[in-house]
Each structure stands twice: as C-alpha cells, then as structure tokens.
C-alpha cells in the first residue's frame, strides 16, 4: 500500500503540490492525469524518495520514507521499478547493460542468466537484438521501450511509469499497454502510471486520479472517467476547448 498524506512540494515560490492525499492499495493500477506541468512527475518522484516533500507523509507499507536518508531509502528503492519521462538511460552503457543493470546490482544471478533475461525482455518490448547498441543510436520511442524493459526486468513489487507511451505511434502504444498489463497480471505489482494519452491509459489502469492546481481534484474508476461529474475533469478528458479548465 502506497499512501500520501497532506503532501506539499514547492520550488521557489511556486507551490507545485499543495496537499496531496492519495492511496494506492497493493496490486492496484492507478493512472494519474493532469495538465502539463501540473506536478505529475514530481508526484512520482516523491513516491520513491527522489524528491522530498516540504510537508506531509509518503508511506510505503506503513512506514514513512520521507525521514529516511539516501542510504536508508536503498531497500525501498530496490522494490520499485521506475520509468522516467526522459528515459534516464545511462548513455555510457550499451542498451543491454542498461537493461541488465537492476539485475546485476541485485546480484545472485549468473552472467548468462542475466543475458538471457535481458534478451527476453528486449524481445517483449519489440527490440530484440539491440543489446549492443548505445542509447544515443536509438529513437525516442525505442528509448522509452528500453526504459520499460529496465524498469520491469527485476520484477519489482511497485512499478512507476512516467509517460510510458509518449512518442510512440498508436499501434505501438496499444502493444506497450498490453505488455504492461500482462506484466502486471503475472507479477501482481502495484502500478502507478502517468500518461497524456488518457484513452489508452484508461484501458490499462483501474482508477484514475486527476491532478489539478496542486491537488487531486478527482479520483474514480477509469471506465466512467468521461462521465465524471466534475466539469473540469470532463473538459480535460474530452479535450474540449470551452470550459472551466484553466491553462
């Protein structure tokens, strides 16, 4: 269970998150949507302790991680797989080494076993045989998929996806979400996914939270999102130009 209570985060004078309360039960799939620069990525980074809140608590399975030192966070982070919006692929390593990294860090596996899992994972994201390439040789969409492979290879209990399908074509988007869903169903992981592709996201997650002006404005089932009672949410989801939504 991931729990955020009254979480606040500001940068300089700009209050990005202004009292966030959010609960993600173990094994649930939560989608987070919201306008650009509304703090979605910041929220995800708070969950794994990459940013610290100014106030409030971030609890993972009942323990508050906000007070922990960087070393103290290591054990928690080992349980989390993170896909970053800007890929975060280590540009000084090959694609294969990038994907292998979480496994190699964890230790306990023979090298050929790691190599086998890496190539299986790369095949699953449609990038078979790209192990020897450097990240700089890949397109944005390919980097995203390598990032997904790296985030999921160690079967983490919690997986966080920041824009998993940005820059992908519609067909690949569907394929990626099918893969994420299949993964989640086999591992039973808790998933938090941020995406601007609301429609595709809703087919993957069970609940959706709408982040707006520093708060969770709405939270509800993914299927009924387009009929949400809140006009701001409806306008955002439907992409209407007219309405109460403020830029």
């Amino acid at each position, binding site marked *: 269970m991931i729990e955020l209570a009254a979480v606040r985060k500001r940068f300089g004078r700009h209050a990005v998150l202004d009292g966030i309360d959010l609960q993600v039960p173990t094994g649930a799939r939560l989608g987070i949507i919201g306008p650009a620069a509304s703090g979605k990525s910041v929220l995800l*980074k708070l969950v*794994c302790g*990459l940013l610290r809140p100014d106030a409030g608590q971030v609890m993972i399975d009942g323990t508050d991680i906000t007070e922990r030192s*960087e070393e103290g*966070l*290591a054990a928690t*982070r*080992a349980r*989390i797989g*993170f896909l*970053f*919006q*800007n*890929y*975060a*692929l*280590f*540009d000084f390593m090959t694609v294969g080494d990038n994907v292998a*990294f*979480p496994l190699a*860090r964890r230790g306990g596996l023979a090298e050929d076993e790691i190599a086998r899992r890496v190539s299986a994972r790369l095949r699953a994201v449609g990038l078979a045989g790209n192990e020897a390439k450097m990240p700089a040789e890949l397109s944005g969409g390919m980097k995203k998929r390598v990032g997904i492979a790296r985030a999921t290879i160690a079967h983490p209990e919690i997986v966080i996806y920041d824009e998993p399908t940005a820059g992908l074509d519609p067909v690949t988007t569907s394929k990626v979400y099918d893969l994420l869903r299949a993964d989640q169903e086999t591992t039973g992981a808790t998933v938090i996914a941020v995406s601007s592709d609301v429609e595709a996201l809703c087919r993957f997650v069970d609940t959706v939270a709408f982040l707006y002006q520093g708060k969770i404005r709405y939270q509800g089932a993914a299927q009924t999102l387009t009929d949400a009672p809140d006009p701001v949410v409806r306008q955002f989801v439907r992409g209407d130009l007219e309405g109460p939504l403020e830029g």
Partner: protein
Amino acid sequence: MFGFVERAITQVGTTTVRIAREVGGIVVLAFDVLRALFPPTLDGRELVKNLYKMGNQSVPIVALTAFFAGGLMLVQSAPFVEKLQAHALAGWAAGYAVLREIGPILIALMFSGRVGANNTAELGTMTVTEQLDGLRALAIDPIRYLIVPRVVAMVVMLLALTVIGDLVALVGAAITAKAVVGIEFSTFIHSVVDNLKPYDFLHGIYKSMVFGASIALTSCYFGVTVRGGAVGVGRAVNAAVVAAAVSVMLLDFFMTYWLG
C-alpha cells in the same frame, strides 16, 4: 530617474543573491565530495577513464599555448635585455613569471574552457535526461559514482598539465631567447637554475591544485543543477566557464599573497 535607481538596486540585489546561492551550492558540493572521499571508495575504472579522456582533450592544446606563452615572455623582455645587457637574467625573469603565474593561470583557463566546459555539458545532459535520478533510483550515489572520479581526475590532470606546461613554456622561452636575442642555451639554463628556487615551482603547483579543485567543483555544480532541457545545458556551460575564470582569478590573487 528614481525608477532607474530602483531598478539598478534591485538588479544588484538579485545578482548578489544569485551569486551567494551558487557559491553556497558549490561549497555544499565540495563537502559532499570530501565526505565521499573518506574512506576513499573511489571507482578506479571511472577515474582512469576520465584521466585518459581529459588528458587526450587537453595535452596538445596546453603544450601549444604554453610554448608560445613562454616565447612571448622573451619577446616582451628582449628590448630591455639588450638595453641593460642583462642576458644572464633573461632566463630567471621568464622562469619566474612562467612558474609562479603565467603557467598555472594560463593552463587553468585553457583547462576550464576545454575540460571543464565539456564536463558541464556531459553532466548537464545526464541531468536533463534524468540519469542522475536514474542512478539514485537504483541505489547508486551519483556523487560517489560520477562526481568524485571527475573531481579527482580534474585536480590530478591540471596538476600534471601544469608541470608539462611549465616545462614546455621554459623550452619555448629558451628557443625564443636564442632566436631573438641570441642567448645561448647554456646561459639560459644557468640563469634559470642559479636564480630560481624550488619554491618558485611549488608556488605555482600549489596554485594549480586549488585551481583544479575550483574548476572541477564549479563545472560539476553547474552540470548537475541544469534545468530546462538542451537550452539549459548551453546556458550552464557558459555560466560554468565564466564562474571558473572569475574564481581562478580571485583565488590567484589571494593565494599569491598567502603563499608569498
């Protein structure tokens, strides 16, 4: 009129605050690096890789500039050497200036423009593509893994370059002395060896160690604090080079006093 004064004061105020914040950030980074050095759990492979790359980038350019800078000492002093018949002092004069001042400062500035700028760009690109967060998410400390090897490599490399540059500059001065004023090599070498103390060389070496640390920390700091994508990286490189040049000049001034 009043509006102008107010604007000027605001400008001075915000600039002061910004500089204070950046100096503060660099000092904090310096402490983080020092803490990571005790106990010295340095990633040896990263260190060697960085040393190799930095040396490759900068040895030729440093040698070239040092040679001509040394020669320049002689070209500038040639009229006085002739007028005062001070042939026996030409080597001392050139050596004194090169070892204590010209060598360390010129090479530090070259190094900052070449290696420091490159370092800021690299770390900045890694920052905007979230690679530092990526390392932390995999429980790796970016300070230990990325910053410390770079800082150590830069200090060591600038030191080595200063020794090389000092030598090359003296060779440049000796060759120019022979060509321009007709001073024999033996006279030049005697002038250097008889008049310069080992401390003149050490004075410059101490400086170059401090310059190296300052350039390294500045360039790393501006790299890891980049915001705003590729444009931000460009701005950071620029800021890092300017800040490093200013800090080298200021440190040089104070160290010349203190070291004597």
